[in-house]
């Protein structure tokens, strides 16, 4: 149980650190910065686990776990809360296409928009073409594609990712 308690508490501390980082850092590569913050926090989490009492001074003896199982469990939950929780929240807030549409409609004076207005006004007035261009640029800046004589070609990393996506999509019979 100590692993679960510390993972939950650690995740809240991490959320506070993420907030400070995002409000103060001027880096363009914010996902990398968040990942670095998480990696740095991991040994701290493990140290806190190892150097605090097994019962945290409050847990009944029946809820005290072995050290190895406890720390592995705590790290697993702590990592999942960051990778599946805070990082996903960031990705959705920063890149979510559907969410941006909802926010654009909510911020429109009439609280309703036609399809044509959405095409022009998407992304706080940038327009939908900006969204497509942003994704294309992202493939290059994240190392999945590179420019060769004005043509975008996948890098080896991009090829591996594409092959993985294609295999998964075929196995799940996802429509093209």
């Amino acid at each position, binding site marked *: 149980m100590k692993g679960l308690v510390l993972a939950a508490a650690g995740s809240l501390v991490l959320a506070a650190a993420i907030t400070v980082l995002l409000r103060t850092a001027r880096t363009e590569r914010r996902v990398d910065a968040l990942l670095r913050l998480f990696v740095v926090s991991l040994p701290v989490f493990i140290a806190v686990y190892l150097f605090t009492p097994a019962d945290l001074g409050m847990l009944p003896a029946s809820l005290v776990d072995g050290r190895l199982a406890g720390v592995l469990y705590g790290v697993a939950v702590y990592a999942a809360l960051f990778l599946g929780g805070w990082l996903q929240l960031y990705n959705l807030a920063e890149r*979510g296409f559907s969410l941006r549409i909802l926010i654009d409609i909510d911020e429109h004076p009439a609280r309703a928009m036609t399809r044509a207005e959405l095409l022009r006004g998407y992304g706080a007035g940038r327009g939908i073409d900006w969204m497509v261009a942003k994704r294309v640029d992202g*493939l290059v800046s994240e190392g999945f594609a590179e420019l060769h004589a004005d043509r975008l070609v996948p890098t080896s990393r991009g090829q591996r990712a594409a092959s993985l996506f294609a295999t998964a999509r075929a196995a799940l019979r996802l429509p093209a």
Partner: protein
Amino acid sequence: MSLEPLALASLMALAWTAAAIVAHFALFGLGRVERRSRALVLLFVAAALGEAATCVALGVDGARTLCGMVLIACAFILYMPLYYTVAASFSARMLLDLAAAPGGLSREALAGRYPAPAIVAGRLETLCRAGYLRRDGECFALTGKGVLTARGFASVKRVWRLGAGG
């Protein structure tokens, strides 16, 4: 050698998570699934219930059983974004387009495969079906669920100073 309760519950959670993922591929690969998100949620709920039943059968106490179910919830929040990246991400689909085109594509040709009106029309239809938007003549307006989602994420954007995004 006997395992301590937390280790046993964790191993069972791993096994049930693996079963949910195998069932996901089997169900989607072999059958025709209309409501894919709901099916995936149900598979993980079934895995959590399976975990509870297995732990009870193995004599694991309630607290460690709960820990095992939390692990399955953790697997779920990791697996869902992965699935949606494969299933719906524009970037992933663009990468597939590039990989399938010998010699690659120009920026214009790649962007041209994603015509703005069709993209927006498709997403508006999805948002209406999911209950976030309602049609009001030519306009689209938020439902209560849509307002909650939009304002919740707008607050996150403000607190984290993320800018317009999208």
